[in-house]
């Protein structure tokens, strides 16, 4: 790579001219090299340029360095990817058609590695389809050849501004985790997670309601956000709500809002979640814990696309997509009568199933490094690797708390780690000293109540030595019911 500082020096006077023309980027005359470097730190960005055409590379470098950016050029996209692992980069400008790896694939890989990096695609063949495809995948812009240096620089500035905005919103998000805004990236290469990503890509634009099932910490909310951001509602709000954490009255209040004086203590009007999320997406977590009375109300909202605030009389019309999530088996809940079938069918237009982390162990190293990167940015430490032993330990662990648990383990490891490598001793002690055995259903499906009942009756019959009166007594049902169930499940 060429030394950016030096090149900036060389072209300083020229640069000032360019600046004046390009607009309000502050630039002071360099008194000392030291100061200039500080200045650079604030204003200039690191840009990777990827093109198999060496002459094009040279031209681009020349254009970009006018804007005091540090530029690294690559004629091989794979090299660029490799370099990303060790070098900070704000923006990648890449040609679309290249050997080894085309621009779109590079874009995908970059976004996976670090979603905050912006990408500009350049092509000689301005095909509209390609452009649409690229923006969907998070490309910033699509520039067709030939282009003027000014056009390129304007685009670069726009892209970098966008990046700053995103980072700001991420910082805001830190302070206020309830608000939407983070860019959701689903990390993983295992077939199971790739399948999930594929499903999300397909269903996101459709706007239909979605039910996401999976254990806690598997990324249900993340998937919901991904769906939101890939849909035409991306500009609208994303509002998450945990149905399991509130009492019945509170849920109604939170979801529908209330009119002034709807009840004692309601001193002002309050907008409910649905209203706040209008034209966006509502994420209802733990939908299985929603009280039946609320389920009826929710169903009505979905059907009629309007609702009333608590204590209100004027219907408010509504345009939201509902994404519900559950860790429970809703089919069993339906059979038991605690979840409404009609609501189930309304919500479960499409079903996304999040795999357990233990079902996609090959993703553990990738996720671990991703989390490491994430916490390093916050904690200001100089850790560059996770030791092989530590990774092996993580790979062999069952993760009952799934990705969330891994995330917390890495967070703690980063906090306690002294050197530049995370070692086994930085991991929780029980991970190293205890062997964990997990009894799970092999197919990862939740057991239905019927299956559970069947197992249990079989068990009770066995321990009561086949004495049905006794078995019925233990089960708390009468003999006839037991007899019926024995027939039904063929337990004789």
């Amino acid at each position, binding site marked *: 790579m060429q030394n950016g500082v030096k090149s900036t020096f060389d072209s300083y006077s020229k640069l000032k001219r360019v600046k004046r023309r390009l607009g309000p980027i502050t630039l002071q005359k360099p008194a000392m090299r030291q100061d200039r470097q500080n200045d650079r730190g604030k204003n200039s960005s690191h840009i990777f340029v990827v093109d198999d055409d060496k002459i094009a590379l040279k031209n681009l470098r020349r254009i970009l360095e006018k804007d005091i950016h540090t530029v690294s050029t690559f004629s091989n996209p794979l090299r660029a990817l490799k370099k990303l692992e060790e070098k900070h980069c704000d923006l990648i400008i890449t040609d679309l058609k290249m050997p080894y790896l085309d621009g779109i694939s590079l874009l995908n890989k970059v976004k996976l590695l670090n979603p905050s990096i912006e990408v500009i695609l350049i092509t000689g063949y301005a095909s509209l389809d390609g452009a649409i495809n690229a923006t969907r995948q998070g490309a910033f812009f699509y520039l067709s050849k030939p282009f003027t240096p000014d056009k390129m620089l304007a685009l670069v500035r726009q892209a970098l501004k966008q990046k700053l905005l995103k980072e700001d919103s991420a910082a805001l998000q830190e302070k206020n985790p309830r608000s939407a805004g983070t860019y959701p990236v689903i990390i993983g290469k295992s077939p199971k997670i790739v399948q999930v990503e594929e499903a999300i890509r397909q269903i996101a634009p459709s706007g239909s309601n979605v039910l996401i099932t999976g254990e806690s910490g598997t990324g249900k909310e993340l998937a919901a956000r991904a769906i939101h951001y890939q849909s035409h509602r991306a500009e609208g709000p994303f509002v998450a709500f945990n149905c399991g954490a509130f009492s019945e009255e509170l849920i109604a209040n939170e979801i529908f809002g209330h009119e002034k004086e709807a009840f004692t203590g309601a001193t002002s009007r309050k907008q409910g979640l649905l209203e706040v999320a209008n034209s966006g997406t509502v994420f209802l977590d733990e939908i299985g814990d929603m009280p039946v009375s609320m389920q009826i109300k929710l169903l009505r909202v979905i059907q009629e696309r309007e609702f009333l605030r608590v204590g209100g009389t004027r219907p408010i019309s509504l345009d939201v997509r509902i994404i519900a999530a559950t*860790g429970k088996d809703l089919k069993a809940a339906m059979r038991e009568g605690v979840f409404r079938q009609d609501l189930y069918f309304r919500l479960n237009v499409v079903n996304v199933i999040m795999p357990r982390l233990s079902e996609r162990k090959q993703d553990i190293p990738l996720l671990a490094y991703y989390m490491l990167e994430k916490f390093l940015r916050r904690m200001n430490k100089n850790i560059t690797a996770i030791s092989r032993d530590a990774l092996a330990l993580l790979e062999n662990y069952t993760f009952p708390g799934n990705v969330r648990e891994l995330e917390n383990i890495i967070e703690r490891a980063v906090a306690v780690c002294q050197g530049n490598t995370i070692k086994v001793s930085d991991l929780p002690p029980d991970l190293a000293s205890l062997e964990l055995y997990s009894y799970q259903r092999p197919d990862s499906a939740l057991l239905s109540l019927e299956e559970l009942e069947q*197992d249990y009756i079989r068990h009770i019959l066995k321990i009561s030595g086949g004495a049905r009166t006794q078995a019925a007594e233990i*089960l708390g049902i009468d003999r006839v019911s037991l007899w019926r169930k024995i027939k039904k499940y063929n337990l004789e």
Partner: protein
Amino acid sequence: MFQRILVVFENEKVCNDSLTYTRELALRMDSDITLLMLVEMAFMDRSYIGSKRSAITHIEEQMRKLLSKITGRFLKEGIVISTALRIGHPAEEFLKFLAEKPPFQALIWGSSANLPEIGRFPQNHWIRKVAGNLECPLLTVSSKEQLESPQE
């Protein structure tokens, strides 16, 4: 989002490694802990209950002492913990308990390093019957040293 871990014990038996693991897991998952002690007692005939009343009171007292001793270890770490005692048929009480409560994200067997076995038919212990079929994984812990030098 808040998480919940359930530790299940049977008949006063408490395994130290399980508790260590539970504490660490709770910290990692930012979760609350519930300790459930199941004490086996048969109520085949309801008329028996009267005569067992004093035995039950005695058990309740014992268990309360034991459980409060355990909870201290968690409270020190700032973990929210609650306890429950159920007397009766363990599998039945266990499943009933799960049905009554909001879902747990992890279950941990707290009475021994491995799931218990009954004589020659290991699968006969009640917890083994239900183990693979619960709402979330049931975990057991054993120390690695133990595994490396198997029983003599």
